[in-house]
C-alpha cells in the first residue's frame, strides 16, 4: 500500500488548450504543502482533478484509492460554497455537511466556530470575504479524513483572520493527514510549510522541502519562488 497522495502522468485539456500535462507528484502523509503558481497556472484545476470534480488523464491515488467515488471519501475540499443559495444561513450549511459527510465531526466544528468567531445565524450573502474563508476552513477541517485542500484561503483577508486561520490549521490538522494550501503569495504561510509545489508551464515545475531550500540555497522561500520567474536562475 502506498500511503499519501500520488499523481502519475496526469493531463488536463480544456477544448484545444492544454492546462496541465505530465503531472507526477508524490506527497507523503502528514505534510503541509504550499501549492504555488501565478493566477491561472492551474492550481485550482489540480485540486479539482484530485477530488475528481474535473476529469483528466492519468492516475491519482489517495492512500491507494484511485476510483473517483472512493477517492472523494479521502479528501476534504470546500469549493467556494458553490451550490448553496445566497440566502442560506451558515447553520443550514453546517447541517447539510453533517447529513452528507459521515466523517463530519460536529464537536470539532463547534470548537472552530468559537475560535474563528463564526456567527451561525448569518446568511451566506452577508458574509465578509474573511468570514467566508473562515467558514470554509471550519467546514473543510471538521471532516476527519486523509487529505485537506484549501484554495487560496488568505486572499483578501486581514492579518488577524490570517493568524487565526493558520492557527486552526496547526491545531486541527490530524497528524497523518496531508494539507495542501494554494496561494500565489507565499510569504504569509512559508513558516508552516513542509514542502512547496510550484505549478508553472502547465506542469509541476518544482517540488522541494522548504528547509532544504533554506539550507541548500541560503535564501528565503519567497525569494526562491520569485527567482523561478526570472531568467537564468541558479537553482536548476
Amino acid at each position, binding site marked *: 500500500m502506498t500511503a499519501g497522495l500520488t499523481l502519475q502522468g496526469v493531463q488536463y485539456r480544456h477544448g484545444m488548450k492544454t492546462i496541465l500535462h505530465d503531472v507526477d507528484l508524490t506527497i507523503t502523509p*502528514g*505534510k*503541509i504543502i504550499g501549492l504555488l503558481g501565478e493566477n491561472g497556472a492551474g492550481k485550482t484545476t489540480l485540486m479539482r482533478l484530485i477530488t475528481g470534480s474535473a476529469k483528466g488523464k492519468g492516475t491519482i491515488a489517495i492512500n491507494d484509492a484511485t476510483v473517483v467515488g472512493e477517492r472523494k471519501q479521502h479528501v476534504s475540499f470546500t469549493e467556494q460554497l458553490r451550490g448553496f443559495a445566497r440566502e442560506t444561513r451558515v447553520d443550514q450549511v453546517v447541517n447539510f455537511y453533517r447529513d452528507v459527510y459521515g466523517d463530519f465531526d460536529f464537536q470539532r466544528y463547534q470548537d472552530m466556530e468559537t475560535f474563528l468567531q463564526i456567527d451561525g445565524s448569518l446568511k451566506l450573502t452577508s458574509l465578509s470575504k474573511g468570514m467566508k474563508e473562515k467558514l470554509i476552513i471550519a467546514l473543510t477541517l471538521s471532516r476527519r479524513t486523509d487529505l485537506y485542500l484549501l484554495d487560496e484561503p488568505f486572499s483578501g483577508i486581514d492579518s488577524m483572520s490570517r*493568524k487565526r486561520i*493558520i*492557527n486552526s490549521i*496547526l*491545531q486541527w*490538522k490530524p*497528524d497523518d493527514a496531508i494539507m495542501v494550501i494554494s496561494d500565489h503569495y507565499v*510569504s504569509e504561510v*512559508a*513558516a*508552516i*510549510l*513542509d514542502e512547496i509545489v510550484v505549478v508553472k508551464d502547465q506542469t509541476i515545475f518544482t517540488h522541494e522541502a*522548504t*528547509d532544504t531550500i*533554506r*539550507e541548500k540555497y*541560503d*535564501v*528565503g*522561500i*519567497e*525569494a526562491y519562488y520569485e527567482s523561478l520567474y526570472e531568467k537564468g536562475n541558479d537553482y536548476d
Partner: protein
Amino acid sequence: MHFDDKIPIYYQIKTHIYHEIIMGTLQPGEKLPSVRQLALDVTANVNTVQRALSEMIAAGIIDSKRGKGNFVTMDETKITDLKTQLITEQVARAYQQLHALNLSDEEILNSLKHYMTQRGNVE
C-alpha cells in the same frame, strides 16, 4: 515567534529553546509542552517542531521519556557545555567580522572594552 525566512525553521526553533534553557526560563528537568502545543506557541508545523526536538534529543539536551513527554536534561554539565557552545558561536561571529576589517586581536579587544565603557555611560 517571528522567523527569518532564510534560516531553516527547525534550526530557529532549536535555537529559541536552547536560549530559554540557558536563560533559565526552562529549568533542568522541566517538562516541555506537547509537540502540538509547541507548534501552536511558535506558529510552526508539527513536523518542523518534531525535527527540532529530535536534534535536541540527539544532542542530549532534551530527554524523551516514552509515554511521558520531553524534559530538559537534569545533567547540568550538558547545559553548561551548551552555554559555552552558544557563547563561542556568538563571539566567533563577531570576531570574524571584525577580523575581516583588518583589526588586530589587540584592536578587537580594545574596541570591545571601549564599547562596554561607552555603553555603560549611555545607560
